[in-house]
């Protein structure tokens, strides 16, 4: 009956898809951004930059504040390059900001009792108390990486239960959630984020630990490749972020820029500049950088006897104008920055000579191979048919084609199918969406770690329950 009639607002959603929303909050922190929102919604309402600014004593969060070129603004990130929380105090505040700024700030209370109408001080104090426990009404679903340490996990439940007063809590792996976001319980997850790329197998919603593979060859690594590229191309590209430019004039392609630079009394900090440069690079990655879709590697020779790079040279390039007005056509170079993700030998030498050269085993196809060889052979065909691609850096143009070609060449006998959401937002927020689905399922409510259980067993319960 339910399927025949159109949905009306008076119908219980339970009848349709097994959902039972309890206004749980899903929090998905990553190296570059924090996603937060209510479970059951299709996209996170709150999207906050993971970088935060420190101005002397003051700490500022959010894109509205950290992009001001202030003299004493230091930019930091509470997460390590591996996607683990390092600075718990700030992380807590940052996450709290992500939740309260968009999700729970405007807590509507009864006008007769919310204290707005009378001005006794006692009530105000009470209100402050209430605000301190930000999530008293909301169960919290927090995500973590597959390689999170036990200490970190216990810390996170402590924060949720004690600082935020959550009635219930759950810690889920973001790769599992990415699989759920694609509607799969068994999948091979290729998650290419900002700081880490990881490949792992998920069986029935449980990560197979032996199959976890990760490497730093992700979005930020592509940025560093771009820096190498900019320093080697002729003419060299001077990467000056937007805030340094007072005005620019249009110049011809390849001509030096004629921009007027801003003068600062005291230059903004290095970390601020790095953040702003990263923004320019991100734009460049989004609009220019491309992955050679295959078949074969970029430098491989194709059937007609020429290399794939030669073929690209014959194709039109792309123009990109930097903030200072300098612009040029990007031909085959736009492929070379990302080629290292798939072909270690094609990676550009790093500018920072301290960085170790990347290994073949760090490239995505090799990680996939290692990962899938670490699981039972019976599972492999299923996994290859359910490769789920997630993470913002996987949005590089041509990434999926290349991945498909590489995997098909690697396992010619198997059927390879790659599931990558077409919508940009769904790819970027894949794990959050999975969390949103999980948290709104009626059957999930038996799994929450409740406050009572936490009080009874302590923080170690998270190790026991969230596997």
């Amino acid at each position: 009956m339910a399927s025949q009639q159109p949905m009306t607002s008076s119908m219980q959603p339970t009848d349709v898809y097994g959902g039972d929303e309890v206004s749980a909050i899903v929090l998905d922190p990553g190296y570059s951004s924090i996603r937060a929102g209510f479970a059951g919604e299709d996209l996170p309402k709150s999207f906050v930059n993971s970088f935060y600014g420190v101005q002397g004593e003051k700490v500022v969060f959010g894109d509205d504040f950290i992009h001001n070129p202030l003299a004493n603004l230091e930019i930091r990130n509470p997460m390590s390059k591996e996607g683990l929380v390092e600075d718990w105090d700030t992380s807590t505040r940052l996450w709290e900001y992500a939740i309260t700024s968009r999700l729970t700030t405007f807590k509507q209370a009864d006008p007769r009792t919310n204290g707005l109408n009378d001005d006794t001080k006692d009530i105000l104090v009470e209100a402050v108390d209430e605000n301190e426990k930000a999530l008293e009404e909301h169960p919290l679903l927090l995500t973590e990486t597959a390689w999170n340490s036990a200490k970190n996990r216990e810390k996170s439940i402590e924060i949720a239960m004690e600082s935020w007063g959550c009635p219930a809590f759950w810690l889920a792996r973001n790769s599992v959630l990415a699989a759920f976001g694609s509607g799969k319980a068994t999948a091979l997850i290729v998650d290419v984020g900002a700081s880490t790329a990881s490949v792992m197998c998920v069986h029935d919603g449980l990560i197979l630990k032996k199959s976890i593979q990760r490497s730093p060859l992700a979005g930020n690594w592509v940025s560093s490749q771009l820096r190498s590229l900019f320093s080697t191309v002729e003419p060299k590209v001077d990467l000056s972020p937007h805030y340094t430019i007072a005005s620019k004039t249009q110049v011809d392609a390849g001509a030096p820029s004629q921009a007027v630079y801003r003068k600062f009394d005291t230059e903004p900090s290095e970390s601020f500049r790095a953040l702003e440069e990263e923004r320019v690079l991100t734009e460049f990655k989004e609009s220019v950088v491309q992955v050679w879709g295959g078949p074969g590697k970029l430098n491989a020779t194709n059937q007609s006897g020429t290399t794939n790079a030669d073929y690209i040279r014959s194709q039109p390039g792309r123009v990109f104008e930097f903030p200072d007005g300098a612009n040029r056509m990007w031909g085959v170079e736009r492929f070379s920055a990302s080629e290292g993700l798939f072909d270690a030998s094609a990676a550009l030498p790093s500018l920072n000579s301290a960085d170790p050269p990347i290994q073949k085993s760090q490239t995505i196809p090799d990680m996939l191979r290692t990962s899938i060889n670490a699981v039972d052979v019976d599972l492999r065909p299923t996994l290859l048919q359910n490769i789920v691609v997630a993470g913002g850096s996987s949005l590089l143009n041509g990434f999926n084609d290349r991945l498909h070609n590489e995997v098909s060449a690697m396992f010619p006998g198997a059927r390879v199918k790659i599931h990558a959401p077409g919508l940009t937002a769904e790819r970027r927020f894949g794990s959050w969406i999975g969390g949103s689905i999980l948290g709104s399922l009626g059957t999930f409510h038996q799994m929450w770690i409740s406050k009572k259980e936490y009080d009874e067993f302590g923080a170690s319960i998270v190790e026991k329950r969230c596997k």
Partner: protein
Amino acid sequence: MSSHDVRDMLDLPGTAGPRPAKKQKIAAPRSTLKGLAREVQSLGGDNPIAIVPEISVFKKRRLANRKPAAKWEYRPFRNSVRSDGLILRHWRRKPEVPPAPAGEVGRENEADSQVEEPIDDTIFAKFNVQVQVPEYNDEQYNAYLQNEHWTKDETDYLMGLAQEYDLRWPVIWDRYEYVSPIPDVEEGDDAIIPAPKVRSLEDLKARYYKVAAAMMIVHKPQDRMISSEFALYETMLAFNPAQETARKKFAENAFQRTREEAKEEESLLLELKRILARSEKLNEERRELYARLEAPPSSGNIGIYSSSQGLQSLLQQLMTVDKSKKRRSLIGPDGASPASAGPNSLQQGFDRRDSSMRESISGPSGSAVKKGAGQGPTERRQLTEDEERTYGVSHPTDRITSGPFFRYEKLSKPISLKSTAQQAKITNTLNELGLPPRLIMPTVETGTSYEVLLESIVKMLQFRAVSEKLSGEIAVAKAHKAEREKRERAARGEPEPEPEAEKTNEEEAGGERDAAADADPEAQEDMDGEGDVKIEEEQEKSAALSTRGGSAHKRSASVLSTVSDKSTKRQKK
């Protein structure tokens, strides 16, 4: 193009009836159009101008619902499968409450108090299902589950994992990190503790299934299991880790094939498919050919149908076949032609075609049909020796005369051919031995030994009879002797008080003895009748088995021959 042309192309009659009606139709809407000048209207020619009504409102306004908007409330609920009584809240439609005339404040209070009362259970509680993992205690472990490769501790660990991961084997294997209990194990997350044994997935499965099967049989004996349980039990027992490992290895090899190998295999498979398809066809043809060859020769029978009377009878016969297709018994056991028609017609078309063909050809020659029904020699499966033993198939060298018979029939035949008195005796002996008169399970082995037993029983009875007879004769001879002595004594003049009857008795006995010496069976009969009852019963036997055994053999031989005569007669029928 006019409709005439269309009709021409479609080969339809030139002018059709509906035409005038069509014209009317066109005319009808034209007249109804209003607010349009005739000139404008005529611009459209034959086709009326389409007039699309202009709709000024995008959507019809929803009819004002007289009822007030549905009320929703943020209702708490609990989950009965949670032990901690966690109460979460979700939005649910408020059940319709009769409108309370009280003020707003009163209502609020009411709602608040209602929240306290009933807390629903979530409907999703029923989805919390757990797997049943075998449980055992120390005693049971020691009794049934000892294994040299597994300690109890590790088995416990395995069972724990199986429970924890709901028997998801890949996960269990993935997370299997058993550390034998050493007092000071470091509890670091990254501390690498060398695992003493690397367990393969098959090891884990084999152990689990073994334990599960053992505990299953402990909790419920095999004969009390229901079929599904027993099937599960059998499956668990049948788990073969070596085979599984080999299979995995094979799968792994197949998985690691290169593209060329994969292609080659694909083409080979295609070839195989083609060959198989072809062979199927070939087999079909071959079978048909055999069927044709097997069809009974029609030469001898055609003569019957050469006359019109014969044809008439054939027709009659066919009619009866049609009528009695349902049942074979109606046609009678004399094996008339349609004997196989009834049941065969229900079989596949191939058979039916065959039999019908044969019917028409063979006519009254029933035996041929009977033979043809047996699908031909190629169809018969060759049995191996083991199977032959299992099914009790034998290839007797001696001639079986009477066609098929039941084994117990064969066994009871030697008994039933004896006289009732003999039968009773044999049965008595069998009873003494504690054997039933008829074998419960007449297999070949038991049958042969039963036959041997019967033979020896018969022999034993014969010997007994002979011995009894001999002792009887001895007694008579003794009596005779005593008589003679008496007579001699009487001759000598000794007084002898002898009754008359005894004398006659003695005389008769003497006569009998003579008769016995002559080997006359009738005389013997008389003697036995005068002797005690047992001997009388044994008359035939004793006759047969008296010291002149030749006649006994003769007799039994004749019995056999009559039997065989009978059977041959029956067979002939």
